[in-house]
């Protein structure tokens, strides 16, 4: 009897310790970032056992709602917070701090059978507003444009709408897919397709651009030089027109495991993982300065 009681006591203490001591860091949000942050978390946990981190997708909007309602510790967002969301956060006593953890070249992708090589920002916007309905308006390709996009809870959806569509409505004919991966699958099958995805989703396991896809060069002005989002120099210099920072947001100054994890991500080891996964490092410029301020 005594022995059993001892074992029971020991296992209870162990269980209690697990429940109390190792609080799980919950991360939720951007679908564009979910794979990247998952891999970052795995590498980090491999080096720091006893720092459990759970990463979920759902879209930037879902992550932001999660941080406001305090159902997660960190929100991944591929867009900036809207003023309305910041107001809601303040009302609930949540003070968001945003850390730039990577830079994404938002990629405009077509089927490989499509001969189009380069588009202007204005042309992409017109397609997604539903004003250009056939590829012949921008190339020698005779095929209806088949639009692929994300759903309204996606940060990428909102970013595109602001920066490429000029804050106008999306065409209601756009197919609204659950995530970047579904957009890629759709484009590979559909010859008339155009879609937008985070640059990290262009690659297969061997870090080559996936078969069946073509990444379109984007120029700011008609007749201007076009750049692809896979070109690090073009994204860093701002020549690629639709690059954007990817954020991780915390409630107030990050503490404990969350703080150490964020420090590791923006440090050399984390940034090496970011580059390996196809996104771009934060670099030494304004993003780093803003991050340093937010850690204090």
């Amino acid at each position, binding site marked *: 009897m005594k022995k059993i009681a001892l074992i029971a006591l020991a296992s209870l203490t162990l269980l209690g310790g697990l429940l109390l001591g190792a609080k799980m860091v919950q991360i939720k949000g951007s679908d564009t970032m979910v794979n990247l942050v998952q891999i970052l978390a795995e590498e980090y946990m491999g080096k720091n056992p006893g720092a459990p981190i759970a990463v979920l997708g*759902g*879209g930037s*909007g*879902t992550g*932001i*709602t999660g941080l406001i309602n305090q159902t997660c510790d960190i929100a991944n967002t591929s867009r900036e917070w809207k003023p*309305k*969301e910041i107001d*809601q956060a303040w009302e609930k006593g949540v003070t968001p701090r945003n850390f730039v953890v990577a830079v994404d070249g938002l990629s405009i992708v077509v089927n490989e059978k499509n001969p189009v090589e380069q588009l202007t920002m204005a042309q992409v916007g017109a397609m997604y507003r539903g004003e250009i309905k056939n590829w012949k308006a921008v190339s020698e390709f005779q095929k*209806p444009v*088949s639009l692929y996009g994300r*759903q*309204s*809870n996606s940060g990428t959806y*909102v970013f595109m*709408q*602001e920066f490429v569509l000029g*804050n*106008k*409505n*999306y*065409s*209601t*004919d*756009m*197919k*609204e*897919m*659950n995530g970047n991966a*579904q957009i890629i*699958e*759709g484009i590979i*099958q*559909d*010859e*008339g*397709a155009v879609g937008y995805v985070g640059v990290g989703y262009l690659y297969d396991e061997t870090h080559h651009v996936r078969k069946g896809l073509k990444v379109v060069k984007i120029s700011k002005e008609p007749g201007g030089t076009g750049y692809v989002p896979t070109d690090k120099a073009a994204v860093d210099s701002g020549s690629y027109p639709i690059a954007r920072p990817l954020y991780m947001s915390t409630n107030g100054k990050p503490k404990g495991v969350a703080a150490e994890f964020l420090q590791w991500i923006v440090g050399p080891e984390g940034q090496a993982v970011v580059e390996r996964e196809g996104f771009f490092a934060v670099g030494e410029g304004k993003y780093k300065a803003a991050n340093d301020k937010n850690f204090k």
Partner: protein
Amino acid sequence: MTKRRRDVQEAAIRAFFFTCGILAVLVLLGIFLTLVATSFPAFRQIKLSEFFLSTQWDPTSPEKAEYGLLSMIASTLMVTAGALILAVPIGIGVAAYLSDVAHWRVREVLKPVIEILAGIPSVVVGFLGIVLFGPAIAKVFHVGNGLNALNGSILLAVMALPTIISISEDSLNAVPRAYSEASLALGASRWQTLVRVKLPAGLSGIIAAVMLGMGRAIGETMTVLMATGNARSFPHGFLTAVRTMTANVAIELGEVPYDTTHYYALFAIGLVLFVMTFAVNLVADVVLHKYQEREQ
């Protein structure tokens, strides 16, 4: 055991079963009242005429938030109608085969198999829509992709079939033997007996089966969300992407800020769906009762 004690026991058991019975009614009533209460505030901002007659739904639009449900009502009805066109002939055919043609050994195997079909999770059916039916539809109809209303209809037909088959078969079996014996004795062939005697005699049960299958199809969410492409436009045909009411609620509820017009509007969609499925189930129930009464 004294009589008194037994009486108390009896009363307690009675009360227990009464509570169980009344619970279902209370839950239904609770859901209905919650839906009404939460959808009501939506109509402080949205005109009823806009909600039911406008085809534009874009609550997160940067231009002007729009709350027109008509496109989604049309999409839901279209996908459901398509499913019934596919499922009703097949369902009745299978039911007739099972009740009148099949060898009893075949029936013993077939019936449980069909009932297992009803237990397949909807997310699995949706997955089949993406990887199997989608590419097949794209190939057969020479369209860019198979994420459209037809795909949704096929999948919903698959999901409605077990209900339709099972209840239709029961109703054919319930037709008194004397009917078919009389028919055969008059020199009618088995085909004539089946089509002109048994099917009309079991018609009310078959209609009820179809209505129940329809109720299932209208309310299904995951499958259509995955397989229909979710474009917000008014449906142009079975080969274009559509968004049903259920899919829209699933897409938007995850990110919508609480207590906003958009939030209430999603509950209003839920109310419309509730009323539709309730009406369909009610009709099915009335028809089914009529036929049971006549049998007695």
